């Protein structure tokens, strides 16, 4: 009798523990992907993020504690287009989890959802062009339409790995799409007409955003990706900015603030420092909030630049 009670207690303990646990453990490389995975998975997933919103995803230190997150993962969702090439392979190796190794159903390159990849290099690709991404610009999540497509892609993979909740994943992805699409017109209204403005970026991080909002870029302070700009190049960009009406400078929170601030000041143009991802600054706790924040900041900078 005593043994029966003990067995029942053990079964209840583990049974309840099982009830409390999510069906899928998802690891997202980026905070944007983590937010989308949570939205699509709802209560059926437990999501952890490797690169926080304020960290530059090109250079994340591959800490073993991050590999530990991968060890128990059922699904790894990553940006792709080689954005994470400097650290994700090391973490996957250290995580020693065959469920999420390359080629398995537990790993999902979200770039597969993107219809049009920008800045795919033409001609020969070598490092004389800096830390160029040979497969194209990987910062596609800065176009909210791509976030919607990624949500649908995630839903399909979650449905495959957890068929019992397939309907819920697909429904939540559609709900997310409807929510984002209902806000996109509002964000564009907030921005207004940007055809008289020009953007000078620090790093070519914003190409998808600029295309979506209809803002033309006229140069990058970082001449070659990942390489500190030469004083001569910075001087050229400053001259270009000075002579262009409606121009302003866009930098990410992790970019070299000293160079961006000095360049904007010498141009006499506004500088807008934007979060590169969800969690990049206080208050940007979700993907919609990211675009709210970005559009508000861009609108202010665009208006200020036209007054100068």
């Amino acid at each position, binding site marked *: 009798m005593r043994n029966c009670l003990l067995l029942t207690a053990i079964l209840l303990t583990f049974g309840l523990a099982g009830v409390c646990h999510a069906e899928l453990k998802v690891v997202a490389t980026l905070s944007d992907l983590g937010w989308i995975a949570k939205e699509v998975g709802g209560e059926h997933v437990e999501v952890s993020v490797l690169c926080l919103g304020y960290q530059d995803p090109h250079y994340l230190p591959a800490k073993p504690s991050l590999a530990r997150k991968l060890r128990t993962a059922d699904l790894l969702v990553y940006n792709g287009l080689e954005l994470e090439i400097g650290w994700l392979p090391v973490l996957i190796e250290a995580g*020693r989890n065959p469920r999420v190794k390359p080629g398995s159903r537990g790993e999902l390159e979200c770039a597969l959802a993107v219809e049009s990849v920008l800045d795919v290099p033409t001609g020969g690709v070598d490092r004389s062009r800096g830390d160029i991404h040979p497969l194209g610009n990987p910062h596609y999540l800065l176009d909210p339409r791509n976030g919607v497509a990624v949500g649908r892609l995630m839903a399909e993979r979650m449905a495959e790995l957890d068929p019992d909740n397939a309907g819920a994943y697909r429904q939540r992805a559609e709900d997310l799409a409807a929510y984002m699409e209902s806000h996109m017109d509002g964000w564009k209204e907030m921005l207004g007409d940007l055809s008289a403005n020009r953007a000078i970026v620090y790093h070519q991080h914003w190409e998808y955003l600029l295309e979506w909002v209809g803002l033309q870029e006229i140069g990058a302070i970082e001449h070659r990706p990942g390489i500190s700009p030469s004083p001569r190049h910075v001087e050229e960009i400053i001259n270009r900015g000075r002579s262009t009406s409606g121009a302003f400078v866009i930098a990410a929170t992790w970019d070299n603030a000293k160079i961006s601030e000095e360049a904007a000041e010498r141009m006499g143009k506004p500088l807008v420092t934007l979060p590169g991802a969800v969690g990049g600054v206080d208050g940007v706790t979700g993907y919609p909030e990211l675009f709210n924040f970005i559009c508000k900041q861009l609108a202010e900078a665009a208006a200020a630049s036209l007054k100068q």
Partner: protein
Amino acid sequence: MRHAILGFLFLLLFVPAAISGQSSTASGVSNKMNPALSVNGLFLAKKSQDRHGVEYNSISLQEAEMHVSSVVDPFWKANVIFSVYPEDAGSAYGIGVEEASLESTSLPVGFNVTLGKFFVPFGKHSPLHTHHFPFVDAPVGVRTFLGEGLTDCGAMLTATLPLNWYSDAVVYCLDGSTETFDAGSTDVSFGGRITNFWDLSENATLELGGSALSGPASVDYFGWGGRVTVYGVDLTYKWICGTKSHGPALTVQGEFILPDLSGDYNQPSGWYALSQYRFHHNWWVGACHGMANANIKTGRDDQDLLSVKTRESKLNLTFAPSEFSALRAEIAYVDDQVEDIDDFSFRLQWNFTIGSHPAHRY
């Protein structure tokens, strides 16, 4: 004659078919299956003066390394590293296989097997490739007992321990033919390592490792030819600014090595402490101090051992304009009782990496 003509016609018919068949096999000649390939070149210019005022000047290839890596099949991936290094004071070059190993990719969660020739996971510094050293050469406390990098043939099992922090345990068995061991001995070597990592904050980590390696000692390294067990403990603190790309970063690292000769000899030991700090986007400054107490054999008898000390201090400045090239200036002072030299040197080291080089571990 008729048979010969028939045979010739038969060959004409079937050989081209066989050749075309070879090029269309499932595992054929697609470029997409090519392994990742990279080459690293490491050069060193050195100007030094010993206590007798004798100058030594040199410019040499310190090491060139070719790294080939690829997935083999669903179960393994492979790493092969060829190295070219100077011999006979730089007048000739040798080629060696630094690493040639298979690593499992499909074992159950947390386990990993490595077979072949690999860097022995002893301590923190010894498993590093030469181009990844934080200083021009390995600390004296390490190179005295483990050489510039310990690689050997064998098998290694790694398991992640189910703890609340990241903890890895490694056990391995080696042929025991590296320079540290007595290559003439038929005894195998074996060892293990346990590594623990804790996140002190989002940006700071602490690593504590313990290593042990047992094998037939090389007289050149230990002054004694019996079995030796080398113990090591290492502690590393790292802090990297999380909010800025290429922002400030600090590493403080120390390692203590204790060979146990299980005899009545002077206890050898080695240690070092180093620090590196990135003070600007591309600029690092580093300092290292270390010591080795070793035995050298002075006669035929095993008891004819002389205990000697080597001390060294190094300071360097590194400019790394990208992840793929670096220029390093270093001053080093070595007080070496083994070679009876008191050497002050200035070194200039430069290196490049081309191709697809795998990312280094944290």
